[in-house]
């Protein structure tokens, strides 16, 4: 910098300059002169892109990082010009590859996981949930219907109970069990060990199930709905069982602690699957692939949230349910969670929602 202002400095740069200038002038072809004039920019971009590809982001200087978008556009326009004026296949192939590599970097995933999470919690998630409201309503209706069907089936013929509730799931909760035995499944776990372990297992299992419910949406959403119906029919059957023993309120409370969160999450997962299935079956005016991709991205946001909700649900199930051993307290926790989720999804408009709307 300083040297450039001094006479000796300019002299030195003069000795450097004529060489490249003469090379440019001596080039016979105009397209070669074009190339020689811009080669330095290309090579600088290549160096930046190469070090980013190798994961050496930290070693790049700030100037290089700031220059990247500009250089990318310069090289992209070089490519456009070269395509119209040059027949040097090597240069064109190089520029095409370089533009592609720079495009990968410039349009790569920009947000770090952390930034993304902040935007996600600060409105992106709830906006995505609101965007699939129709599917949520459908999923809710299907779940209510599934519960009713489960109840009615078992009320009609007790044998259905074993068909709906698998043996290992049922445990002591079978038709004909005494009231005391059923009561025992609801209360008196507070002294149990390994709750944290239990919660982690629950989370791991539930999240895989809900990812499945989402992924099955790809088949036009029908398997997602079937999965919802099946799970809810199981719930309906259990409700009937406890109703028969006069423990319906207590069972509801036992379920409400984590169930409001977990069932909400499962509903969202089913709705997300349905959303994809619906856009696949009825893409509207857009091409199928584009419609599916748009729906898929929205549904993926919802699904990430579902996994978070299931973590909360597992914690509630593993700890709160065992520690709070009375029905009123359980209803209070469950009701509070439900209200909190509803408020977050439907009343909270975060920063990101505004940005998207603008």
């Amino acid at each position, binding site marked *: 910098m300083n040297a450039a202002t001094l006479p000796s400095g300019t002299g030195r740069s003069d000795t450097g300059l004529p060489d490249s200038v003469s090379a440019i002038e001596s*080039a*016979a*072809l*105009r397209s*070669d002169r074009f190339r*020689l004039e811009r080669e330095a920019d*290309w090579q600088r971009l290549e160096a930046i892109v190469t070090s*980013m*590809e190798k*994961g050496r*982001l930290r070693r790049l200087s700030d100037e290089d990082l700031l220059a990247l978008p500009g250089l990318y*556009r310069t090289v992209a326009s070089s*490519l456009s010009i070269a*395509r*119209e*004026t040059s*027949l*040097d*296949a*090597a*240069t*064109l*192939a*190089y520029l*095409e*590859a370089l*533009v592609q*590599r720079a*495009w*990968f*970097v410039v*349009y*790569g*995933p920009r*947000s770090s*996981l952390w930034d*993304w999470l902040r935007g996600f919690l600060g409105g992106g998630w709830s906006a995505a949930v609101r965007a699939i409201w129709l599917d949520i309503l459908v999923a809710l209706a299907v779940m209510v219907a599934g519960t009713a069907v489960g109840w009615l089936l078992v009320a009609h013929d007790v044998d259905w109970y074993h068909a709906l509730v698998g043996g290992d799931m049922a445990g002591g909760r079978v038709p004909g069990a005494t009231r005391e035995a059923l009561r025992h499944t609801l209360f008196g776990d507070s002294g149990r*060990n*390994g709750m*944290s*372990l239990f919660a*982690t*297992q629950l989370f*791991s299992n539930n999240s895989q199930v809900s*990812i*499945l419910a*989402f*992924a099955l949406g*790809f088949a036009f959403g029908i398997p997602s709905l079937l999965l919802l119906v099946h799970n809810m029919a199981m719930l309906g059957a259990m409700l009937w069982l406890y109703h028969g023993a006069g423990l319906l309120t207590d069972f509801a409370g036992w379920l409400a602690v984590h169930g409001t969160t977990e069932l909400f999450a499962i509903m969202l997962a089913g709705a997300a699957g349905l959303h*994809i299935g619906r856009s696949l079956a009825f893409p509207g005016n857009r091409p199928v692939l*584009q419609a599916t*991709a748009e*729906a*898929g*991205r*929205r549904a*993926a*946001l919802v*699904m*990430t949230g579902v996994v978070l909700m299931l973590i909360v649900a597992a914690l509630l199930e593993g700890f709160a349910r065992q520690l709070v051993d009375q029905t009123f307290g359980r209803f209070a926790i469950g009701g509070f969670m439900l209200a909190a989720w509803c408020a977050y999804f439907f009343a909270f408009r975060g920063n990101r929602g505004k940005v998207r709307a603008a």
Partner: protein
Amino acid sequence: MSVVPTRYRRTSRDRVLVTPEGISVPVTVASRGSRVGALMLDFLVILVLMGLTTWGLIEIAGGLTGIDRNLEQKNALGHALQFLVIVWLVAMFLFRNAYFLFFELGPRGATPGKRIAGIRIAARDGGRLTADMVIARNLLRDIELFLPIVFILQAGAQSGMGWLTATGWLAIFLLMPLFNRDALRAGDMIAGTWVLERPRQKLEAAMSLARAPAARHEDEVALDAGAAPARRTYRFEEAELAVYGEYELQALERVLRDDRAQSLESVYETIARKIDRNDGWNDERAFLEDYYTELRARLEAGMRMGRRKADKFSGSQE
């Protein structure tokens, strides 16, 4: 003007992608083989990671024996062991689900396996690859891959029609990349992504400038034939240049770059016969270089005027 004018169409996997700036960039869709290879590598890495984590935690816990006995105890040891088991469960969940996310969200857009295979993911519409896309793409991996494999492994004596139906249904997802042109798997369709090859292209010296290697080559010729050591320059008439187009120019460029005496000779013979010259005998390379430069100059001058000549068959629109 065709969209891939500068490169010979090498495979059926070449596509054109339009960047947000409106530049069309030729890209190559990754082959199915390299994707399977990348996946295998990633699984290998995941398995090794899982194994190491399990081994490490068992080491910390002090061996397998007695774990299940101590786990249920309500003392400090029991709690510590419970904690370790939780760490293990969480780690397994993360390895299974977050491994792909973590790496594909990085600036390289590729897991280690993909990087070794030389491929990466990109947005299909040419826009930015967003975190949403990466997440959507990887959430579907379960149904596409793990589920069918589990089902197939369950094949046994009691597997009946139900198993067959389920497996057939799931196999559709597993084999999805075979049924579409861009080798999209279900997750790619959902997310709007695709897997592309990473280009590697070095900037080669322009043939019309590369005089130094030509001189070296000429010396060898000079030794063989005893011709004049100074490089001869050749001039060509307008009519002699008008016979060829861009396609032939690029073919000539390739021959010059490959620099194999035999092909140089045969190309020289073809051109010399076509334009009815024989003065470049035993000096083929210099002759061809000059011909290349002048032909390129002529064709590029035409380009600037909006006249293009694709190959020798297309008439020059003059």
